[in-house]
């Protein structure tokens, strides 16, 4: 009897470990894949892409850690030396200006999205999607209205940012983004609200059947630019 009890306890523990593993596996697979491809090659390719994505995310985390370490070092250095306090403030100010620091404040959120109309029933389906130029014009209007920091789908707009057309998507900072485009801007909300004016670009987009929502917000956080700004050819002019 004791032997049988022992056997059943061990079997129970094994089943327990097994179901825990199965549940974790099911959750992991569910998290990463929306649909299972029919093709063996397709599955392999997708797994490869996911693996690279993961590597990329890990690298980003490492960069973040390095940034934190740098900040700590700067902090340490300035604690001991009051003369360096100014230099530190200058670095922070510079980071804020060129977009390599996260910023927060009041502003507006603009959402641009493709039209809901059926593309097969329209003469020119290309009029139903948000183009790179639409994003570009809206950003330009935001800058004109005094926006201090702008991001499109979490991609910070910096001096070296290019907005390109990439087929049915748009590339910002080399990252592919798609509809809906969430453009966040920090600035005086009342000024930014001028984008809604009659005859403005947002109005024109709405008239064309696209979605162009404008929303004021008191708390907007705009992420920092994750790339590297490296000036190779521009050199400082000596006075």
């Amino acid at each position, binding site marked *: 009897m004791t032997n049988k009890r022992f056997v059943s306890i061990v079997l129970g523990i094994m089943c327990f470990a097994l179901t*825990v593993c199965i549940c974790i596996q099911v959750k992991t697979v569910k998290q990463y894949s929306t649909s299972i491809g029919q093709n063996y090659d397709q599955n392999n390719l997708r797994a490869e892409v996911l693996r690279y994505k993961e590597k990329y995310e890990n690298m980003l985390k490492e960069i973040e850690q390095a940034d934190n370490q740098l900040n700590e070092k700067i902090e340490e250095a300035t604690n001991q030396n009051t003369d360096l306090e100014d230099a530190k403030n200058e670095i922070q100010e510079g980071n804020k200006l060129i977009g390599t620091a996260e910023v927060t404040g009041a502003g507006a959120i603009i959402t641009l999205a493709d039209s809901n109309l059926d593309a097969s029933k329209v003469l020119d389906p290309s009029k139903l999607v948000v183009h790179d130029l639409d994003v570009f014009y809206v950003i330009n209007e935001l800058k004109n209205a005094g926006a201090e920091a702008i991001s499109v789908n979490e991609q910070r707009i910096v001096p070296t940012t290019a907005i390109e057309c990439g087929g049915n998507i748009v590339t910002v900072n080399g990252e592919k983004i798609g509809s809906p485009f969430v453009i966040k801007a920090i600035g005086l909300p009342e000024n930014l609200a001028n984008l809604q004016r009659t005859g403005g670009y947002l109005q024109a987009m709405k008239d064309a059947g696209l979605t162009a929502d404008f929303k004021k917000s008191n708390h907007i956080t705009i992420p920092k630019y994750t790339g590297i700004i490296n000036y190779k050819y521009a050199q400082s002019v000596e006075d």
Partner: protein
Amino acid sequence: MVLIAIIIGCLLGALIGMNAPTISYTYSSYLAIAIIAALDSVFGGIASVINKKFDMKIFISGFFGNAILAILLTILGEKLNVDIYLAAIVVFVWRMFMNLGTIRRYYVEKWTDKVKQIHEQKLDTKQNTTKDIQEKEV
């Protein structure tokens, strides 16, 4: 007894597994092959309990050994660019079906024996009653 332990283990495992964090996608293929290996071991364990040949040492070493060996083979296959894990899956699933067959045969035989017994009992009572009736008539 064994069945109750298995059910409790599965329920507890499902409960905890639902709340456990997910693992990174790179390792999920290794975990999958380990799950297949462990599943095979559990079915093998149940089958050996039924056959009354259950050995705890063999069972536990098989459970962990098979899983680890399967993972190592998968890694080796990735390094050599050969899909060794396919062979592992084939072997484990084949063994799983064999073990399931053993379990199924045991229970089906048990069931048929029971049905036969009930049938025989019924026949006995019928014969008895017919005898009684005959005796009465006589």
